[in-house]
């Protein structure tokens, strides 16, 4: 007799795949949820210029990088971009591509910054903000708006990136010093 799906013995011993969430997984989930919340909340803020926003969601990545390492920060950032775009309805749209490219560039910049000795939250945040803006503008110029006027906007956008990166860095440094005390 060949075993079949109606065999009562087969049903009594089902194969169960158990996924256990490690503390690391739970930490990523919590922090990603926080980052996504900030990301969505921030998307309703009015912006003086397209592409300029405070980038507060990256605060979570900066804090996570300094507390738990680059891997955790990368997980949070990637989840935030994907889930955030699903919630906002921009998944796979140009907005999403810009966001994903900027985030990839920011993660690379933070990875480089964390290899340099003595770089704290402010350095990470400024590097990430500038890389995010640079990556975004380069993609926009290459793919969407190959027009000289876009590059003329770059200095203004970079100024915003430096200012917001600095402010976020101060906030992140404050948060970290309170977490460690």
């Amino acid at each position, binding site marked *: 007799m060949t075993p079949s799906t109606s065999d009562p013995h087969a049903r009594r011993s089902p194969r169960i795949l158990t996924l256990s969430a490690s503390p690391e997984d739970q930490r990523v989930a919590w922090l990603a949820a926080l980052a996504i919340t900030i990301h969505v909340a921030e998307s309703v803020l009015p912006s003086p210029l397209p592409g300029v926003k405070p980038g507060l969601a990256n605060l979570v990545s900066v804090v996570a990088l300094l507390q738990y390492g680059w891997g955790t920060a990368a997980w949070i950032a990637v989840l935030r971009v994907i889930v955030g775009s699903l919630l906002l309805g921009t998944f796979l749209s140009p907005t999403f591509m810009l966001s994903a490219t900027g985030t990839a560039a920011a993660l690379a910049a933070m990875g480089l*910054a964390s290899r340099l000795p003595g*770089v704290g*939250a402010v*350095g990470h945040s400024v*590097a990430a903000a500038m890389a995010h803006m640079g990556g975004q503008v380069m993609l926009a110029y290459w793919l969407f708006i*190959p027009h*000289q006027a876009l590059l003329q906007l770059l200095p203004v956008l970079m100024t915003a990136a430096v200012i917001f990166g600095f402010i976020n860095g101060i906030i992140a*440094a404050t948060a970290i010093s309170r977490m460690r005390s």
Partner: protein
Amino acid sequence: MMTRADFVIVLAAVLFTGGLYGMLWSESGAGQTALIQVGHEPPQRVTLDAHRVLTLRGARGDSVLEIQPGRIRFRDSSCNHKFCVLSGWLTGAGASTACLPNQVSIMVTGGPPGYDAINF
């Protein structure tokens, strides 16, 4: 709050941004040619090399364009509000203005012409 390395990164960021202003906002990228379009006719390309004045016949009357080395402007146009004249000299590549009532538009071009924007 800020380490010495942070200070160095912030300083480098500020200097880099300042450099971008110098590089991208300098007038060195002045256009060499301009495209002029009147009505639905194909645009004509003019070189911005020497001083001259062009008078074009538009939908409502004459538009007077003035060209100097590296720049072009509407000197006068037969329209009511003169927005085209008020927009002044166009210098950098990509700069453009138009006299809508008279259906005359000009755009300074520098490098090879590309798309204005692409959407998917």
